[in-house]
């Protein structure tokens, strides 16, 4: 049996559930997923400014409290928090260990960064558009698979830190290493990929993002436990959480996560295989223990997906709120004023009435809200134009309908993401072991 825990489902995730897992779940491995599509582009920009930066901004905050427990309990850490600079991240972890009077061995895995290798003129996005349309490009990272992590596992290190690696591969690699699974057994690769996919969003399989009081009850959501899998050599896995933690693991939570961000469930593409989740089966064998088996798979894709970050402009946004029986009428008047004021300079302006139709652009029930927030937003080429939106909304304090409150504004740079594909043969993986 191999026990793998999931200690973070996104860069800003909670830290304490991972500590509980390390101390109480008898783990062999802990995986921290913390690299959203856009994060790597922002990290790449930081690295260009400072060669010692460009790793996940929360790396120190997250790893420092975990490191003593990880080493004491002999739990190996695998994380993609190296972002655009895994080598600098590894050095930072070694320095943290020295500060704590600990010794550890860290592997930094790179090779995903293809920004200088891609000839953008020749590449098309997955939707068939020329990549040149998306300049200025700030990052280009290939989704690496298990082959990026296996050499580091063979080197028997305490911490493996990578850049862009497909999320399920972070979990599949230790399974292959431990059980010496044949990488051409694509049914096993598919089942291992499913285990990784179920764990990669951490709390989303243990009752997080699930509760709906009266319909879907979750015990003690404020103390949500994170998941771990107990995996057998044949790939059958129990998905569970610590007994004293909040949350729930049942076939409902596991099914929701199985289909999360999946398109055709019989063809889930990863660098390691094309997994088939539609053959999977599951059974709740005990409270908070779901046995999952039967996912299958076929060949590895010839090409790897590359995520490309580009500067897409500036988001300008402003909001102001109205209350009372006539709130909707005043909000609609405010919306009209904002559109009149900005029509010439920001023709692409979008306005929403939060509390009424902002989320679904319509309503499915008919009630009059007591409070409404007017929100105006646009993606602008120039930062100055984006700023005008917040200014105009704020000006409604003294120039708009009666009783507007809580005005706020922001302007931020937007990094857009498009995808393309690259031949596997164009990728060279580097594993640097540091002590």
């Amino acid at each position: 049996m191999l026990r793998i825990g999931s200690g973070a489902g996104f860069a800003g995730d909670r830290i304490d559930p991972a500590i509980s897992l390390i101390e109480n779940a008898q783990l062999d491995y802990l995986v921290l997923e913390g690299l959203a599509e856009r994060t790597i582009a922002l990290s790449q920009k930081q690295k260009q400014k400072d060669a010692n930066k460009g790793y996940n901004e929360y790396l120190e905050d997250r790893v420092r409290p975990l490191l003593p427990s990880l080493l004491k309990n002999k739990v190996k850490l695998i994380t993609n928090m190296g972002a655009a600079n895994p080598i600098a991240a590894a050095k930072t972890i070694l320095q943290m260990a020295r500060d704590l009077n600990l010794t550890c061995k860290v592997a930094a895995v790179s090779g995903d960064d293809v920004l200088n290798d891609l000839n953008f003129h020749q590449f098309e996005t997955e939707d068939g558009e020329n990549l040149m349309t998306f300049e200025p490009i700030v990052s280009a990272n290939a989704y690496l698979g298990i082959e990026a992590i296996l050499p580091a596992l063979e080197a028997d290190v305490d911490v493996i830190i990578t850049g862009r690696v497909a999320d399920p591969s972070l979990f599949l690699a230790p399974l292959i290493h431990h059980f010496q699974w044949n990488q051409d057994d694509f049914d096993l690769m598919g089942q291992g990929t499913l285990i990784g996919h179920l764990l990669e969003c951490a709390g989303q399989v243990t009752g997080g993002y699930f509760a709906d009081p009266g319909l879907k009850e979750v015990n003690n959501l404020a103390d949500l436990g994170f998941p771990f899998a107990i995996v057998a050599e044949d790939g059958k896995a129990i998905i569970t959480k610590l007994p004293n933690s909040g949350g729930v693991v049942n076939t409902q939570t596991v099914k929701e996560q199985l289909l999360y961000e999946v398109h055709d469930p019989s063809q889930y593409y990863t660098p390691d295989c094309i997994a088939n989740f539609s053959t999977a089966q599951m059974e709740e064998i005990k409270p908070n223990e779901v046995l999952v088996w039967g996912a299958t798979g076929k060949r590895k894709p010839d090409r790897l997906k590359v995520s490309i970050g580009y500067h897409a402009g500036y988001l300008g946004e402003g909001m102001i709120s109205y209350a009372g029986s006539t709130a909707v009428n005043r909000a609609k008047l405010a919306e009209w004023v904002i559109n009149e004021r900005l029509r010439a300079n920001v023709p692409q302006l979008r306005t929403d009435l939060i509390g009424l139709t902002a989320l679904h652009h319509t309503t499915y029930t008919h009630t009059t809200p007591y409070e409404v927030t007017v929100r105006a937003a646009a993606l602008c080429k120039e930062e100055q134009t984006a700023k005008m939106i917040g200014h105009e909304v704020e000006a409604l304090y003294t120039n708009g309908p009666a009783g507007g409150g809580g005005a706020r504004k922001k302007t931020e740079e937007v990094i857009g993401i498009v995808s393309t594909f690259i031949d596997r043969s164009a990728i060279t993986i580097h594993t640097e072991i540091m002590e």
Partner: protein
Amino acid sequence: MATVKLLHIAHSRTGDKGDTLNFSLIPYNEKDYASIAEQVTSEKVKDHLQAIIKGEVIRYDLPNLHAFNFVCTKALLGGVTTSIAWDAHGKSISSALLEMEINI
């Protein structure tokens, strides 16, 4: 025969990739799988969510797991990373789906 909102017989979670959304639809009770299969078709979902989804709706059936997966294109005002929608990820859209009515 009674008309109920889907939220009383099934649950759902939304995911996003670019300008494409997917949402699961999972009956609480396996016996409702057939009614959903018959009534909650791709066409009906596209019609119900016409204010949100500007592209196609494809339904994938998972009889093994008694679950459905709907994939919808052109659903996020241009895609998560550059969308200026209030819910740029479309994460709340599962709640719109569950407002749909079904006869059971």
